[in-house]
């Protein structure tokens, strides 16, 4: 039974594309057949995050317009068996595709893949409507900031009115030290306010910057970084496993605490 999952957020720049790439890698490395669909038409990014930008021939719009067959547009990731990317078009815009066409496309992909991960563009307009059209469930990415959580709330409302009854939340870029100091909203606060199921917490991790520079998602070497591990755990939760949340607490050392007290005193 295959499943289409849309990864969305409302606000831009919170890590949707990174989450999509890493969850795709994680699910594929757990033995599933996965296709990543970049629904951000006009602002193609998933290809570079995946490191597959040099292999694009056809794109999503070409498929929808019947300019090529679906199979021709799919790029196979050589690092993992069963991982594919359907890139977005870069020269078209969101209106080149309709929700019905997206739905059809996802249905077609379901015949061949276990998981279809749709990377949703920022915003709540046509691109969002396209991205959620064929999805069975939704994951919302947010960061511990007022603006990002506010947009997540709006998205949750829109998803609910489109029939998504149990979306999951990924809190990205949490900084445990700042949380410990009381300078960043913590997970219980966010969950309490949004009243939504928590799917995962990903720490702010320099390794993500490095891995994105190289086009090698952190989950390819999950044991090398906390963020990679966190994405691997989310993938397991997607599969229905009960996985405990990572312990991200790096307590302040005595000297850090003393310095802070002196500075803020």
């Amino acid at each position, binding site marked *: 039974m295959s499943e289409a999952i849309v990864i969305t957020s409302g606000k831009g720049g919170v890590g949707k594309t990174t989450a999509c790439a890493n969850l795709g890698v994680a699910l594929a490395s757990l033995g599933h057949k996965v296709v990543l669909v970049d629904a951000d038409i006009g602002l193609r990014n998933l290809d570079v995050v995946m490191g597959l930008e040099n292999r694009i021939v056809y794109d999503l719009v070409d498929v929808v317009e019947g300019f090529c067959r679906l199979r021709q547009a799919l790029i196979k990731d050589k690092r993992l068996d069963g991982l594919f990317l359907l890139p977005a078009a870069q020269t078209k815009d969101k209106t080149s595709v309709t929700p019905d066409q997206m739905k059809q496309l996802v249905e077609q992909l379901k015949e061949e893949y276990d998981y279809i991960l749709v990377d949703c563009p920022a915003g709540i307009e046509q691109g969002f409507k396209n991205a959620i059209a064929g999805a069975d469930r939704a994951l919302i990415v947010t960061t*511990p*900031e*007022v603006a990002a*959580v*506010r947009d997540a*709330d*709006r998205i949750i*409302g829109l998803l609910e009115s489109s029939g998504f009854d149990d979306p999951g939340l990924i809190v990205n870029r949490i900084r445990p030290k700042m*949380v410990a*100091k*009381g*300078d*960043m*909203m*913590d997970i219980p*606060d966010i969950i309490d*306010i*949004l*009243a939504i199921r928590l799917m995962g917490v990903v720490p702010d991790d320099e390794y993500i910057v490095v891995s994105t520079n190289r086009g090698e998602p952190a989950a390819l070497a999950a044991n090398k970084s906390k963020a990679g591990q966190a994405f691997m755990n989310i993938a397991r939760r997607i599969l229905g496993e009960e996985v405990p949340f990572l312990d991200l607490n790096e307590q302040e050392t005595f000297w850090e605490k003393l310095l802070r*007290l*002196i500075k*803020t*005193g």
Partner: protein
Amino acid sequence: MFGWFSRKQQSKNVARDRLKLVLMQDRMALAPHTMEEMKDAVIMAISRFVEIDEEGLEFEWKGNERNKALVANIPVRSVRRRAKAID
């Protein structure tokens, strides 16, 4: 310099409170015309059975999170005689 006790409120609490306020406004903002429509529909439905005092009608949301309760206070003037016969 050692005024630890006068430290400013932790910024995470400031963020949480601002967020709660802005979400309350956001969530309410989606409601106004829906409220009016709903009110009319409820009045119509109830008026088939009882005569109500539309002036004294109160209709409001209680609760402040996503889960709200709709509380209606509907003063009844009289019960219509043949309410049961209406189909």
